[in-house]
């Protein structure tokens, strides 16, 4: 992130619109902003924070003890009922793209002079595309988190008052926290935790599934198909057998017809069989008729209800509620025209008039009348229908009974013929007849078996249809399972990978920060020969080791402690390459002059962009000189007691 420009409008003691363009060259990367205490440095610092993050963000308090953000002067000058606006917009570069963020707060001035400030400020973030067009960013907080998250800001937007915090003995926790956040260890840790949680969920889901099902179902389907094939083959064989038996019977019949002793009997048999066939067909037809009559004859059962219904309808009719001839509309028309049905006019209030009116008010709505009339008519016809229906059924049943007898007697005749033939003294004839009888019995057997095999086939076909549905379902399940188990595998491996590398990474980072801190510390503290080493142990204590190998921390001067802290911060900044500007408020205030000078010289080299808020006391003489060549922008904050406003004045 590299700051380009800030525009402050009515923010605290900055009245109206004021602007600062930050130095951002590689060489001249230092912006100096002068001001005596109280001139507005803190507010300026605050404005950057507020612009980027607001008063608080996701429970991280950005601005403590804010008081009022709106410029008092602007409030004074506004008329009652006017809207007062406070805003800060910040343009910055990041990863080669230009962003513009703006935060606005507004309120209305009330009669008593106070401002009714809206609860929420408005925040917009835009990005300039390659073609120069600005596009709005829909997820500003997420984007800010990718650029400079709110919880690491204090290591970059840096309050100089806290400069020696990290070098204090009790600062270990703070140091750890700083590294944790800035170096994204927190992010790694969260990633690992969440991946674990996700893997656990996948595992739970997976447990509830069973892969066995599909296999079983497919087996079942195969079996069913095999059964169908078996049945079909058997049916085919049986048909063959039946046909062969039928042919044999036909042969026997032929012979019997030809033989002198038997041809009369055989002809008799031929005739009886023909008639039998006919009668059987007739019987089938009669049964079909009986069936149709029976299944449609339920209304016969309902005759009580029908009678009752007819009575009800007739009653309504009798009571005059249903004019059998008249219709409501007709009657209304008559009343309108004041003319009777027969054509004679009548007077208002006359008896004819009253009767007709009664017919309208006591009559039923037209639709209901239609219903009643139609239904009544149809139901009345049912009595006759019932009689006829019963008669038809009786006659059909009688016919069937007749046919049963006829068939019975025909069959008896056949038996008789057969007996005669079997009883023939001629061996050849009785044998033929006995064979014929056997074949006939065989055929009956085949027919039965074919019938039951057909049923079997049908059952299996139904089973297969059901199975198919289940198989499809199981297939879909399986696909889902495969996906789920792959996801589980990946999630778990990712979590494990992070766990694996985390410690190594953390140690590596700690090591690098240690080295960098040492490097920077050496540059900034010229008594380097006095110090041997800088250590950042696994306990996260920042230590300086003297040449005798002991911790030199007790001997560090206040200034040296501050420089150590600063070195640590700078080290973090470099290593994390968040590439954020270092904005420091009164960094030199508590340093000794020689430290100040060195720092002034080194800071611009160590930071990619530097914004320094200084009092004149801080930046003088040599320190100033050391900084000079790097200063790309310089401003002065001038506070006017009269207006209580600070004006930002460009110095160069």
């Amino acid at each position, binding site marked *: 992130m590299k700051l380009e420009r800030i525009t402050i409008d009515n923010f605290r003691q900055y009245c109206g619109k004021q602007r600062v363009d930050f130095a951002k060259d590689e060489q001249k990367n230092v912006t100096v902003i002068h001001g005596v205490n109280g001139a507005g440095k803190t507010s300026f610092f605050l404005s950057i924070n507020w612009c980027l993050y607001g008063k608080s963000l996701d429970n991280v308090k950005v601005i403590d003890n804010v008081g009022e953000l709106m410029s008092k002067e602007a409030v004074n000058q506004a008329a009652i009922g006017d809207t007062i606006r406070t805003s800060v917009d910040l343009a910055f570069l990041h990863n080669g793209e230009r962003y513009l963020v703006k935060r606005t707060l507004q309120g209305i001035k009330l009669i008593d002079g106070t401002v009714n400030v809206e609860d929420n400020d408005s925040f917009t973030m835009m990005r300039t595309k390659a073609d120069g067009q600005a596009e709005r960013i829909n*997820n500003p907080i997420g984007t800010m*988190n990718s650029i400079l998250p709110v919880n690491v800001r204090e290591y970059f937007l840096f309050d100089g008052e806290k400069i020696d915090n990290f070098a204090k003995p009790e600062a270990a926790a703070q140091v750890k926290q700083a590294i944790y956040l800035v170096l994204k260890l927190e992010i790694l840790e969260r990633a690992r935790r969440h991946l674990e949680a996700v893997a656990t969920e996948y595992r739970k889901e997976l447990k509830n599934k069973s892969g066995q099902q599909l296999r079983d179902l497919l087996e079942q389907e195969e079996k069913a198909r095999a059964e169908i094939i078996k049945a079909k083959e058997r049916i085919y064989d049986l048909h063959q057998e039946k046909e062969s038996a039928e042919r044999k019977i036909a042969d026997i019949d032929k012979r019997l017809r030809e033989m002198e002793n038997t041809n009369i009997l055989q002809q008799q048999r031929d005739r009886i069989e023909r008639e039998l066939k006919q009668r059987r067909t007739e019987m089938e037809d009669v049964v079909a008729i009986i069936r149709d009559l029976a299944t449609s004859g339920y209304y016969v059962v309902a005759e009580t209800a029908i009678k009752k219904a007819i009575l009800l309808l007739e009653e309504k009719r009798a009571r005059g509620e249903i004019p059998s001839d008249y219709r409501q509309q007709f009657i209304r028309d008559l009343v309108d025209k004041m003319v009777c049905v027969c054509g004679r006019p009548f007077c208002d209030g006359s008896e004819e008039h009253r009767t007709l009116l009664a017919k309208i008010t006591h009559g039923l709505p037209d639709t209901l009348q239609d219903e009643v009339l139609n239904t009544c008519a149809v139901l009345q016809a049912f009595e006759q229908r019932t009689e006829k229906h019963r008669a038809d059924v009786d006659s059909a049943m009688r016919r069937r009974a007749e046919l049963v007898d006829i068939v019975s007697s025909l069959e008896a005749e056949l038996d008789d013929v057969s007996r005669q033939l079997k009883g023939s003294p001629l061996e050849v004839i009785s044998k033929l007849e006995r064979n014929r009888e056997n074949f006939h019995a065989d055929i009956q057997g085949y027919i039965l078996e074919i019938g039951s095999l057909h049923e079997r086939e049908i059952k299996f076909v139904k089973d297969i249809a059901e199975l198919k549905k289940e198989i499809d379902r199981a297939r879909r399940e399986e696909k889902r399972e495969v*996906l789920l188990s792959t996801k589980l595998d990946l999630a778990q491996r990712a979590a494990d990978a992070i766990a694996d590398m985390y410690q190594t990474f953390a140690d590596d980072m700690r090591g690098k920060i240690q080295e960098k801190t040492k490097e920077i510390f050496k540059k900034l503290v010229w008594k380097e020969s006095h110090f041997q080493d800088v250590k950042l142990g696994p306990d996260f204590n920042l230590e300086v080791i003297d040449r005798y190998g002991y911790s030199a921390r007790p001997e560090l001067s206040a200034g040296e402690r501050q420089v150590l802290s600063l070195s640590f911060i700078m080290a973090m900044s470099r290593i994390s390459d968040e590439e954020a500007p270092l904005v420091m408020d009164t960094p030199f205030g508590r340093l000794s002059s020689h430290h100040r000078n060195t720092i002034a010289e080194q800071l611009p080299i160590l930071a990619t962009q530097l914004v320094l808020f200084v009092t004149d006391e801080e930046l003088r003489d040599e320190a100033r000189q050391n900084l000079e060549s790097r200063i790309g922008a310089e401003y002065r904050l001038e506070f006017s007691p009269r207006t209580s406003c600070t004006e930002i004045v460009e110095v160069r």
Partner: protein
Amino acid sequence: MHKERLSNLFETFDPAVKNIILGVLDIEQEHISMEKPRVKEHIDEIISAVAKKEIEKLDEQERP
């Protein structure tokens, strides 16, 4: 550079795993300011996408 370092950290792992880790890290970064971020859905999305690709790759390998 830091991001590169992170990326390099996972070089030795399966590219699919690496992709997931980098994706998840991005999500986490975006939500870093929240104490209880709702990232599970995003993470599931990332994993699903990578998983589907892996399955596809395997299917293709199985074809003669």
